[in-house]
């Protein structure tokens, strides 16, 4: 194991409840007390990350991800076990920590670089580089309070990655900022990796985990429950979430803290709504273009002459991506009786761009819910589309093209590349 960059050995973290602070003070002086309650948030965590490897850490909120990261970075002490790392660890956990709004970008960088343990000469050497990477122009010498949050994040990231660390810890922090800069950040992270930096990535974003990581570990209730390929771990993660949803009766608030709006007279109600793959496995993350089955289970509570089920997929801003109903589909239910249960299957290919989407459901008697509104439910389901298999693209829909290029009226092809003598030729690029 000479190439291990990071070894986490039997790490456990417990928070102690002392009941009285006097017992805590007693502990420092070697006094033991049986009345101290230990409360473990992490236990028996073992894994090894090799040099240059990228490992994702996934888990639900409260699973212990950030505690583990704090122990790895060293801000938090482990109660048992330990972490050994070779080389310098840098964390993009809380970008811009310790920035003073009254100081200029340059002064803040000088100061925070000192906090990161750089010597003065190193800082002077790195400053021009940091200034150039941040690309905020003359603002670099303006007080930080005049910065937008995006600009602050630019300076912070430039500083955090000014020198290639041996282990880089990337948190969700990266999701803020403008697309151009985020792209630039990822480019730098990838470059670090090629040069041998080990990555530790924490994210709820399946896309990021699968795109960047060689391996993923999953935490659940403070235990390491999986250490496998990103695909396997994300499947397990999906399964775990699905299980949780099955177990509970109904959740009022949506996963991201938004409250789902439900209205209607209640003659029919949505029992459950979920996305599943062709084998009937419940999905939270869907790959671009993957076939899915949107299932809406409706229970009838009172006699209904005519029932129309509609749904609409919205992006995270609430804009409609696609919506239809059983009236448009010419499959209207008539004479539904109390106790009847209907299951609508909408099978389609997920031709949407990368992002988070929600599904709204409407139960009505006609194609518009303005006449009878049995139930209208926003944010009934939230899912994420990730691009893991397809060629990279931007935008909110997936419209895959067939790309060909003609040169001087003649079709170019990759195969004929060797024939060309000094002229333009077609290569796969990177």
């Amino acid at each position: 194991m000479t190439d291990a960059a990071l070894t986490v050995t039997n790490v456990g973290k417990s928070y102690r409840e002392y009941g009285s602070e006097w017992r805590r003070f007693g502990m420092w002086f070697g006094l033991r007390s049986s009345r101290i309650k230990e409360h473990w948030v992490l236990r028996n965590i073992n894994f090894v990350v090799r040099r240059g490897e990228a490992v994702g850490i996934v888990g639900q909120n409260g699973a212990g991800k950030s505690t583990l990261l704090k122990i790895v970075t060293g801000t938090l002490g482990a109660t048992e076990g330990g972490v050994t790392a070779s080389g310098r660890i840098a964390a993009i956990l809380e970008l811009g920590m310790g920035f003073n709004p009254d100081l200029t970008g340059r002064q803040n960088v000088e100061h925070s670089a000192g906090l990161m343990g750089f010597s003065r000469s190193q800082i002077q050497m790195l400053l021009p580089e940091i200034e150039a990477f941040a690309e905020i122009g003359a603002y670099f010498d303006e007080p930080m309070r005049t910065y937008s949050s995006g600009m602050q994040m630019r300076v912070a990231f430039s500083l955090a990655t000014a020198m290639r660390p041996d282990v880089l810890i990337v948190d969700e922090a990266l999701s803020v900022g403008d697309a151009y800069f985020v792209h630039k950040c990822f480019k730098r992270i990838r470059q670090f990796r090629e040069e041998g930096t080990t990555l530790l990535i924490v994210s709820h974003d399946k896309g990021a985990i699968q795109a960047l990581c060689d391996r993923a570990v999953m935490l659940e209730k403070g235990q390491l429950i999986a250490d496998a390929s990103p695909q396997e771990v994300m499947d397990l993660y999906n399964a775990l979430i699905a299980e949780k949803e099955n177990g509970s009766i109904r959740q009022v608030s949506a996963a991201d803290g938004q409250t789902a709006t439900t209205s209607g007279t209640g003659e029919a109600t949505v029992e459950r709504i979920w996305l599943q793959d062709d084998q009937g496995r419940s999905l939270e993350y869907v790959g671009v273009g993957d076939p899915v089955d949107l299932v809406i289970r409706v229970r009838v509570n009172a006699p209904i002459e005519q029932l129309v089920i509609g749904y609409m997929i919205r992006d995270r801003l609430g804009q409609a991506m696609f919506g239809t109903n059983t009236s448009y589909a010419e499959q209207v239910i008539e004479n539904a009786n109390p106790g009847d249960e209907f299951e609508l299957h909408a099978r389609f290919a997920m031709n949407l761009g990368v992002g988070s989407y929600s599904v709204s459901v409407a139960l009505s008697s006609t194609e518009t819910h303005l006449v009878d509104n049995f139930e209208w439910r926003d944010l009934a389901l939230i899912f994420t589309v990730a691009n893991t298999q397809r060629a990279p693209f931007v935008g909110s829909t997936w419209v895959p093209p067939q790309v060909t290029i003609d040169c001087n009226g003649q079709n170019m092809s990759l195969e004929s590349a060797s024939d060309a003598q000094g002229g333009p030729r077609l290569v796969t690029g990177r």
Partner: protein
Amino acid sequence: MNEMLEAVWRYRHFIVSSIKNDLRSRFARSKLGALWMILQPLAQVAIYSLVLSRIMSAKLPGISNPYAYSIYLLAGMQGWSLFNEIVSRSLTVFVDNGRLLKKIVFPRVCLPLITVGSALVNNVMLFLVMIVVFAMLGHFPVIALLWMPVLMVITAAFSLGLGLLLGVLNVFVRDIAQFMMVVLQLWFWLTPVVYMASIVPPSLHSLMQLNPMYWIIDGYQQTLVYGHGLDAMNFVPVVIASLVLLVISLFLFRKAAPDMVDVL
């Protein structure tokens, strides 16, 4: 212990730049900037002089300057403000920097050092202003210039010992800072800064002498007001007390450091 010193040495630039930034951020966005650090204690002295000079001036023997009481006040304030600033800022230094401690790895002992450093810088500035005021009042305590660094070091050591000890405990029991703010006010009035020790009934003198700040403030007054040298014997107990406090607080700090982040 050695590694702590090493870490401090490695982070010396950070400590210096923190002190600098501390000053800088006070300059920023206020018209009078750093002047306020000096104006505040001076205003306090002016108020006390105005209110109390009539009662007090008669009782200041051995000094003929008509502004004797103001000079006396300034001397005492010079010492008290250093003590007060270090203790009150050390009390909350870990709590105030909780976010930083939780997120970034750096030698934690830097924080109290920054506090002491910036308090010392402020105090030196106050001292320079005081010298100017003294000169304007026709008072030139030359010998004091020699003793001032010694007094400052002793005051800082005592204040840091006490402040760090309580600052560490305050992370776990936040009432300590609140309680100490009251104690500091009371302490101020129990120490002869505004009044002279001579107005205290002799029966209470031995009690008053148990207060380490009595000896420290007396040192300031002896040098700055009367132009005397320091009597080393007076300071032996204070120096010992400071060292004991420093050792205890460092020991406590090392024991508590791993626990600290858990509760911040």
